[in-house]
Structures are given as C-alpha cells and as structure tokens.
C-alpha cells in the first residue's frame, strides 16, 4: 500500500499504471480494481471557480490515510491500495485525489474504494480555498456527495 501527497499535476493513469507495474506480488492474483478520481470543477455553490488552493497538515494526512487503509483492510479482502492526493495550486479539470483498490473479487473493490473515499473526506486534514472571479473563499464543509441534485 502507498500514500502519496503531490504538489504538481496528478496524472492518475500514470500513477496507477506505475504502481501496478511495480506490484509484482499482485500479478495474476487480483481480479478486480476499483479506482475513484476526484477532479476540480469550474463551478461550486452556484459560482464560477477559476482556481483552488489545497492546504494540508503534512504528516497528519499520511497518518490518517494509512489508518483509513488499515480500517478498509480489516473490513474487506483487499490486496493493495494506492492513494494520491494533490496539494497546492490547482486549476479546473485537474485531478485532486486518486484512490485505487486491488482485490480478488469485485464486491470488495467497490466497497473498500467507497469506504476509503468517504473516510478521506471526513478525516484527512486537507482544506480547499476557492478562487472566484471576485476574491476567494474557504470551502467550509464537504458536500455529502450522495444527495440527489
């Protein structure tokens, strides 16, 4: 398993491909991979967003994300997990977060991936500040992501 915080552009496909390439122990053993990617949108709460700054608590983020992976591995049959999270200055259409989960069976991959994303949103110390056309604002809380729009 691996947790990585990056300050430059996050290329999710390259990250997953590279990680899987090196994970020799996985070869032939995993039947399912679930990947979630969160990407910056160009609007939020009805306003155009031109850029975003992601602050984090270095050290605590890694500690919390590693705990979350361990919790997922206790609940589901998970072979491996990769989490990559962007910090610093972002532009719309750039990836913010990547969660990749490798399992033998697909149910565990879907369940563990979703669990990790929800736990990350609740526990990992990252904070978003949005740049609007006029000024900037901190995002004060995460949306639940499941409400019907």
């Amino acid at each position, binding site marked *: 398993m691996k947790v990585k915080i990056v300050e430059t552009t996050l290329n999710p496909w390259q990250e997953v491909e590279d990680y899987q390439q090196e994970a020799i122990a996985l070869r032939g053993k995993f039947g399912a991979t679930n990947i979630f990617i969160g990407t910056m949108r160009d609007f939020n709460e009805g306003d155009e967003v031109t850029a975003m700054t992601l602050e*984090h608590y270095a050290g*605590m983020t890694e500690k919390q994300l590693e705990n979350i992976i361990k919790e997922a591995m206790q609940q589901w049959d998970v072979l491996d997990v990769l989490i990559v*999270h962007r910090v610093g200055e972002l532009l719309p259409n750039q990836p913010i977060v990547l969660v990749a989960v490798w399992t033998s069976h697909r149910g565990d991959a879907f369940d563990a991936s979703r669990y990790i994303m929800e736990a990350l949103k609740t*526990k990992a*110390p990252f*904070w978003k500040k949005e740049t609007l056309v006029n000024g900037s604002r*901190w995002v*004060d809380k995460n949306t639940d992501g499941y409400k019907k729009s």
Partner: protein
Amino acid sequence: MSIKVRYFASLKENLAKSEDIVDSQKNMTVADVWLLANPDKIISENTLAAVNMDYVALTQAVNAGDEVAFFPPVTGG
C-alpha cells in the same frame, strides 16, 4: 511543560498566526492549551483538535513535547 500549537486553513487566517508555543507548570487538557494560546477567543464549536496527528476531544490531556493542532472541518478529496 512546553507545547507546540499549530493552526490551519481558515482558522490560521482568522487568528493571523500559524503556530504558538505555550508553557505551563500545571497539567493541561487540549482546551487549556487553546485558552492559554488564545485567552480572548472562544473556540468555535466546529473546530477540530489533534494531538500528535490523531484526532482528540478537547478534554484530552497533553504531555510535554506534544504537538497540538486546531483546524476547521476538513474539505479534501
């Protein structure tokens, strides 16, 4: 004992500081650390606290050398 205090995100901006060092001869909880560092500011009810990078309640006791952090709800992912 000496405790390092850190602030993040909007809380850091509102307090206009990112760190404090507080000293006390007595045993302290996380709430005591806040009071000592910010005697004129009531802690906001949605502020989260961590000691040594683990989430804790404000009633948690702190020890010499601990790093205490205060921050608003997290918004990553």
